[in-house]
């Protein structure tokens, strides 16, 4: 038989429908035989009903609903669990493509936690996509965006802006850039869209601010690339000439296409022996 003390301890859980099995049976039995406890139970139920009535139930403002509807509808297609296996296959293929096309000499792979640089790049990419990081300079001209960053970031950054020859197709377009806070100092955030509208972004800092590390390591010439997954995004980080770079993209963007941002010019493709034209992203 449940004592009055035990009954009162279980009172709230019983009113909230959280008691089960023997506890519930013993509780009900005690309530049936103890007038004082039954009265307490009634009071507790009455308070629960009052709480349900009294607690505010505001609805989301219309503006927020519109924005969230747009965010959900316009977000790029995802690496859902149902196709995670397919994505990893595609990612593996992309890595192979990189290795073959760019003649990458892979060092022994080692993995580690995402670096601060990779995390900052993924965070900035997501915040940009959700509208929280509006661009401060909007232009498809690398020269113009480069000019805008001059004097605003504590390093010199030159964005590539290759001409497209007759019959050539540009694989991406520059949207613009903005400043972001990376470890207490300014970094350059540059947004692109690939020709299939998938977003890709580049975060640039000085090596003194952030250094690439962690993830799967791949070497090409003097450069070392770190590829890692952060918050569902693919982030490739590397450093070159005193600057650290982080390229963040939706997971369905193939690695070789990410590289087209900087290495998409006909000269670049000719210069890098064996570079093959990437196939458009297939159904992933």
């Amino acid at each position, binding site marked *: 038989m449940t004592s009055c003390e035990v009954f009162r301890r279980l009172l709230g859980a019983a009113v909230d429908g959280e008691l089960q099995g023997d506890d519930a049976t013993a509780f009900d039995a005690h309530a049936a035989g103890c007038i004082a406890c039954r009265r307490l139970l009634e009071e507790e139920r009455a308070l629960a009903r009052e*709480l349900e009535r009294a607690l*505010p*139930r505001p609805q989301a403002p219309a503006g927020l*609903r519109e*924005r*969230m509807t747009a965010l959900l509808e316009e977000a790029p*297609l995802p690496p*859902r*669990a149902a196709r995670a296996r397919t994505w990893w296959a595609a990612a593996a293929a992309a890595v192979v493509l990189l290795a073959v096309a760019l003649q990458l000499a892979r060092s022994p792979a080692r993995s580690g936690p995402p670096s601060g640089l990779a995390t900052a790049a993924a965070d900035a990419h997501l915040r940009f996509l959700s509208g929280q990081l509006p661009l401060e300079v909007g232009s498809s001209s690398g020269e113009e965006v480069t000019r805008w960053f001059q004097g605003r970031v504590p390093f010199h950054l030159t964005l590539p802006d290759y001409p497209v020859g007759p019959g050539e197709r540009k694989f991406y377009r520059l949207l613009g850039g903005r400043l972001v806070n990376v470890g207490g100092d300014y970094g350059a955030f540059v947004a692109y869209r690939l020709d299939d509208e998938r977003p890709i972004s580049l975060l640039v800092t000085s090596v003194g601010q952030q250094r690439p590390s962690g993830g799967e390591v791949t070497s090409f010439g003097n450069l070392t690339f770190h590829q890692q997954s952060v918050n*569902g995004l693919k982030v490739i980080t590397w450093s070159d000439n005193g600057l650290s770079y982080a390229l963040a993209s939706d997971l369905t963007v193939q690695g070789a296409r990410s590289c087209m941002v900087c290495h998409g010019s006909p000269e670049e493709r000719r210069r890098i022996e064996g570079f093959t034209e990437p196939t458009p992203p297939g159904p992933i």
Partner: protein
Amino acid sequence: MGADVERSEREFRQAALSCLDGLYRFALTLARDRVVAEDLVQETYARALAARHKAAPDEKLRSWLFVILHNVWRNERRRQRPLAPPDEVDRLPAREDVAAALDRRTAGERLQQAIDGLPAPFRQVLALRYVEELSYKEIADVLDCPAGTVMSRLARARVMLREALRPLTLVPRPREVVR
């Protein structure tokens, strides 16, 4: 992309959107500021979209979104006020403080006012239980605490509310005690 995946993607987005009111309400409970609440909700959806390959099954999607929202809020608070105590659970208001805030309003309004006067952890469990109708286990997951803590906070919240709502004339203030 296969039709099944497309359908599942569509369903995920619809199910996530159907949680909007609840998420906004919980964000308001946490932040007590409409602008901040909207930012919290927006960040929650952005993170949910990015991590939806890890999304909980449909029936648990709602509490999964609440978990994300609470994490966003906690991280934001940590970033802005690193020295602030995470919870004010031990700084309970004296009964007189709550009672003094209650004037001659209707019972419902007085109850609302009493709820508003509770420390944040108690308001949070009340809202998650009696408005969002989450189970103790789900609330524990959202708030990242043991289910026993949820139970005890709810019990203490009810005691405080009952105390606050008791007719003032029945409880003499300390200075009115006849020696």
